[in-house]
């Protein structure tokens, strides 16, 4: 197991190098010149050139890439063009809100989603199944933007229970978490239901029932445990998505998270920040996939890693 994990981590290094190269080339291929954006529409070409020189953007692309990578290996992510500050100092403060929101959203979405999925599967074709699936479909269909604004209007403006913007107190996490988790709750409910239905049809479930095992035990210990592999895979992917930040939720609730930073940085052609964020997101997916694979082993002893 330990050997497997080390091997997986080591194999991520060449992958990250390829990713870094692709990201670098792609973001520099997008039309748009940060020097012009800094200088403004009225600046002269000469003034723009001066800024370009100052930013090191006048060098050939490959040279810029090597300078950048050299910095990375020295732990230097470069300078943000927009903020004129080290990239790390721009990105780091944005992690906290995104991570806390991800955790809050995942917790409620997983609990409720899995619960609805199990209920729906057990009560298949019954009103409870329909109710659960209506909730799930609504969760997927409601646009986060709309839901966020509605929650603000109802709970902040009309009832005054929660603050509208920012993350100044514990209460401020409630509405954004609901908005972010809604779609995930729905997806998990649907996956849990279909996976449970499949497992409930399996022979070992029939055997367990024939042995006279109690129904809750059959459902939770036999059917659900086997369904978990699928649930964990889906949940892992969702965590990966949430950790890249949600532009919609962050915009509606004025949260300084990673999603808005990424969009702002792309609009400003703040290459170094975009690069650092995309590399981090790639790394994050690699790590989450690894964790999911390891969890498989715990869930199903038949899965063994060589």
């Amino acid at each position, binding site marked *: 197991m330990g050997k497997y994990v080390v091997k997986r981590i080591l194999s991520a290094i060449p992958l990250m190098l390829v990713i870094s190269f692709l990201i670098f080339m792609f973001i520099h291929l997008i039309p748009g010149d940060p020097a012009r954006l800094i200088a403004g529409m009225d600046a*002269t070409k*000469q003034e723009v050139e001066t800024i370009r020189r100052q930013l090191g953007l006048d060098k050939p692309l490959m040279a810029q890439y090597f300078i950048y990578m050299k910095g990375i290996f020295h732990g230097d992510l470069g300078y943000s063009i927009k903020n*004129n500050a080290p990239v790390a100092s721009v990105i780091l403060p944005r992690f906290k809100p995104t991570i806390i929101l991800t955790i809050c959203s995942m917790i409620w979405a997983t609990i409720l989603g899995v619960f609805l999925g199990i209920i729906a599967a057990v009560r298949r074709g019954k009103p409870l199944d329909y109710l659960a699936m209506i909730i799930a479909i609504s969760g997927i269909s409601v646009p986060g933007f709309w839901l966020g604004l509605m929650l603000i209007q109802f709970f902040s*403006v*009309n009832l005054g229970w929660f603050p509208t913007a920012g993350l100044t107190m514990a209460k401020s996490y409630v509405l954004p978490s609901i908005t972010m988790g809604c779609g995930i709750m729905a997806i998990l409910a649907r996956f849990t239901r279909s996976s449970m239905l499949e497992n409930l049809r399996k022979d070992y479930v029939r055997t367990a029932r024939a042995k006279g095992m109690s129904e809750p035990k059959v459902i939770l210990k036999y059917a659900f445990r086997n369904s978990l592999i699928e649930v964990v895979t889906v949940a892992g992917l969702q965590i990966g998505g949430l950790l890249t930040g949600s532009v919609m939720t962050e*915009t509606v609730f004025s949260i300084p998270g990673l999603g808005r930073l990424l969009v702002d940085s792309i*609009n400003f052609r703040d290459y170094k920040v975009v690069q650092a964020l995309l590399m981090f997101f790639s790394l994050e997916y690699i790590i989450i996939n690894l964790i999911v694979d390891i969890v498989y082993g715990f869930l199903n002893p038949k899965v063994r890693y060589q």
Partner: protein
Amino acid sequence: MKRKLVASLLAAAMTVGMLSGSTMLTFADEAATEGDVQTVSADGAVVTATEQTKATDNDLVIALEGSVSGLDPQNISDTNAISACMGMYETLLGWDDDGNMVGVLAESWDVSDDNLTYTFHLRQGVKFHDGTDFNADAVIANIDRVSDPDNKLNRRRLFIITDENGNETKRITNIEAKDDYTLVITLNQPYNVFLNKLTQFMIISPTALKEYGNDIMNHPCGTGPFIFKEFEEGDHTTMVRNDDYWGEKPSVDSVTIQEVPEAGSRTAMLQTGEADFVYPFTSDQINAISGSTDINVTASPSNIMRYVTLNMNLKELSDKRVRQAMNYAIDKDAYIKLMYNGMGLPATSCVPSIISYYEEQTPYTYDLDKAKELMEEAGYGDGFDLTIWGDNTTQEIKGMTFVAQQLSQIGINVEVVPMEPATVSDSIYVDEADAKINMWYVNWSASDRSFDSSVRALLTSDMVPPTSANTAYYRNSDFDKTLNDALASNDEETLKADYAKCQEMAWEDCPWLFLGNDEVIYASKSYLSNCKVNPDGSLNFEHAVIAQ
């Protein structure tokens, strides 16, 4: 059981529907712009609060759409950063409410007859927040800092002339402190907008500069009415009252500028009282606050010029009659109504009325017969095809579509091409031979309010792309010469005459479709007074008062 369930679900769905109908926050029906135009009273009040409430604290919270990119006043370019910095820093010169230039850190100033030497008599007894005295040496330290290329500051442009080959010359040939409070600056050539530029140049404590260098952005230290407290990039900036301020002390205890990108959320914050002031307040939000009695909405003039450049290198657009016909074909009142709910004015010159030396021109009144006549005369009775470029935001696309629709009335078939903003700029700043631009839907505002900055980069021959933004490829040597003569002069009469002549020429030649000048719209709680938005979109909260 099943029927009951369906019924209750239906009821729930209807409740949600009603909720969304009665409290719709953002997407107010666009049709409301038709016929349902807001009336603005003489003092700019769009909605007046019927209830005078009192605040529970004396802390001013302002919700803004965009971000404050940083707090180094010599390295910022966005308006919100300027707003935040202006709370903590001051300039030598500034503007009063009527748009006159007034002294701030300079009490008075003289300009020599040859327009080269500027003498500033500085205010005495002013201290920076760290206790350092404000004096002539402090100003010199700031100019030295910004001029040093190693500091890579974008305000350096104020003090440098770059020629076509990229060689740089310093605009300031000599700077000296005659005594502690008399500063003499000598320029290498006459430059009448120098004083205008200084209204944008904020002075930092020289002691803090020595201590922090370019890290000063994290430790702002000026002479302003507020002292820096905290800055969280992408979230908020907070400053507290400077009790030792030399001028009239602020009334509020603190000011927080918070970034709230979504218009509906800004409105909600105002309704809950989490924010006392929001800007911009989009006109479609007016319906959303109809239930609130303690909110004032105000419109005030801006320095934003909305126009469409016409590439005069194109055969069809090289004919002045065609360009004039196009201006006649556009109903500017309908434009302001459609785009800004009536809050704005049709353009009456190539600069907004707030700009120095503005002269009103005879409007191209909406007249399709005249437009068609001119098109016939020019030999384009059957019209022709054009493209219009612009940013891909909803508002810009709406404006471009309006222009296209209006021009179709005189047979000009316009294809609307929205592009991502940085892509537009890439497509525009290309060599003349490669230029594909026909029309550009764009806007411009000169923060220093000078006539020169309002037109130089957009209408002089030297400034055609890729050099700068004259995408009309307007080349009028008379216009260039008059503008340059004015730049070298300091005589009021000459300036007035020269700038009037420039405006007449541009208006007659029609290198642009002159659209309009929209207003800045902001909303505030009724307990807040004296908090305003300047014509360039920056904030004026220094004298804000919160009724307790």
